[in-house]
């Protein structure tokens, strides 16, 4: 109460008046116009970005029949969880969560570690072929995934790294055949070897960060008798918090949303959330055919419900990491300048 009183005190009012006058004096009319223009533009663009989110929320909790009710625009007359109930019947959410965790989240986290090691090697050590390795990292970003898919599929289907399995078969006469299709290894293995989804980009981002880091600390550690590995673990890793969390955010989001790799290499054995989304319409249609009382018109609210479910974890992650994300944009060498 005291605080509020003092806030409205004559003294403060006088200050506010002065600062307003100051604002007008300092800013020329065209400047004020520009400020208004800036806010109008940004608010407009924010609206375009947020509109689908509001739409998703509004419809996910709307009774299906209200979808075409012209008197209901944003706020449903009654809130309902029916849409989520339908989603849960059509999609085994527990299995999808587990599969998404194995196929998307774990490889995403592995990638953030493996790419950091490679980038540190590229940024800090002078060895023959370093330039070539970096050029090849850039090449992996440029080559479209689809160029590799056909032979990757065959490679996973008849997995035989460097002919080792064939060799064993030849010697022992056993007919070992390893089929990785339909297992989470199709995303985990590349991630372990810094070749996962968009790994080249993460290596690039990390490398720029390490290049912008002052060398002196590491040199001091080296003089004190630390070898390269313990310097990395004790001196370098603790400085990487923001950039690591930025890469975690990007990597988790992109792996979570990736539809191409799972749909190519998982077949029907596993189902990630992106696959559920893509297949959801098919399942709704099947229900329609069975005549379980659902009409085409009511499907949209259920589609919005599963969309909402699929982005909620990402939005929570984004809100949690937003601060580190912004800081790494502002302070570290995300672009190496």
């Amino acid at each position, binding site marked *: 109460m005291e605080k509020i009183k003092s806030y409205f005190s004559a003294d403060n009012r006088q200050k506010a008046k002065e600062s307003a006058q100051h604002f007008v004096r300092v800013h020329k009319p065209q400047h004020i116009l520009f400020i208004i223009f800036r806010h109008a533009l940004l608010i407009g663009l924010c609206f375009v970005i947020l509109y689908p989110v509001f739409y998703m929320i509004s419809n996910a909790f709307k009774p299906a029949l209200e979808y075409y009710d012209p008197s209901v625009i944003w706020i449903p007359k009654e809130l309902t969880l029916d849409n989520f109930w339908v989603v849960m019947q059509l999609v085994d959410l527990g299995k999808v969560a587990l599969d998404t965790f194995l196929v998307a989240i774990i490889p995403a986290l592995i990638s953030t570690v493996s790419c950091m090691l490679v980038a540190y090697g590229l940024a800090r050590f002078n*060895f023959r072929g370093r330039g070539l390795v970096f050029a090849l990292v850039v090449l992996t970003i440029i080559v*479209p995934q689809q160029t590799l898919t056909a032979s990757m599929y065959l490679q996973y289907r008849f997995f035989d790294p460097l002919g080792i399995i064939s060799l064993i078969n030849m010697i022992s006469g056993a007919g070992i055949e390893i089929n990785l299709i339909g297992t989470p290894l199709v995303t985990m293995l590349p991630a372990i070897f810094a070749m996962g989804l968009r790994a080249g980009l993460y290596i690039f981002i990390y490398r720029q960060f390490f290049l912008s880091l002052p060398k002196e600390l590491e040199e001091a550690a080296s003089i004190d008798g630390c070898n390269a590995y313990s310097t990395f673990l004790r001196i370098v890793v603790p400085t990487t918090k923001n950039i690591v969390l930025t890469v975690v955010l990007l990597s988790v989001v992109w792996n979570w949303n990736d539809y191409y790799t799972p749909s190519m290499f998982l077949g029907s054995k596993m189902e990630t959330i992106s696959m559920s989304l893509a297949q959801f319409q098919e399942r709704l249609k099947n229900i329609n055919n069975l005549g379980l009382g659902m009409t085409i018109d009511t499907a949209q609210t259920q589609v919005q419900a599963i969309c909402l479910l699929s982005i909620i974890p990402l939005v929570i992650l984004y809100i949690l990491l937003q601060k580190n994300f912004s800081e790494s944009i502002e302070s570290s060498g995300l672009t190496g300048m």
Partner: protein
Amino acid sequence: MKRRSHFERKRARAGYVFILPWVIGFLLFFLIPLVNSFYYTFNTVRLSGNGFTLTWVGFDNYAHLLFADAEYPQLLGTAVGNMLLEVAIITLFSLLVAVLLNQKFHGRTFYRAVFFLPIIMTSGVVYTLVQSVMNGGTSIGNDQNAFMFQSTGLKEIMLQGNVPQDIIDIVTGVVDKIFALLSKSGVQILLFLSGLQKLPASGYEACKIEGASSWDIFWKITIPLISPIIFLNIVYTIIDSFTAYGTTEAGNTMMGAIQNMGFGKVMNLSYSATMAWIYFVVIIIFLGIAYGILGRRVSKIQG
């Protein structure tokens, strides 16, 4: 050649240890598949019970796709046209947004948080669904999926407000394009903003004292200083535009066509690989052009 010192050799060895996982991954998950897929383009691949057989056909696959196929050259043209348009518009737009977001004003943390949201929302299947919400479902002309996208979103609201049909079409068209633009510019805005943050404030103060206008400062100081980022963004946009991949509905894009050819009803792995390789060469050519025009200037400015 100068012999390296013991210390230097030790450092070099540590460097190899750090990149060793990548070298293995590069061989297993990139180089070998890449060479294989290049080899498939000169063969016909047939899948059989436990393995696959290859029949050498020389340049037949290339000849077929480039000269006999009705759709492929057209798809290539569309992809290149889209790319040129996207590079121009996205680069300008993301620079504008980044410059605005870099200014000091109230609420800029909020705006920034919102502007990076598209990176999250629009990199997967959700994007297709979201975009169809934005334009009232007109983008997907496929009858089979139409019921899923019947939402009329913004359109419906305006119809209820008795807005004339022409205006509705214009507004939904523009909003749809802005949304597509925003969703494709997330990373570019991020890179520009990060670059702008690094510019030294002292230089700007000096310019102001000398009496330079904001306009002059922007063109003569800011643009040259962030030219490496402009180049980086153009390269990123070229790659992103060429390799953008939506969902199963993306059959009208090159990426979708390559997938359908290899893994759809036709299951022709060698055509699929050939399509991808021709496409890859086109991407390399355009990246080379971008580097030829811009890369040198950038490195000159950098000294």
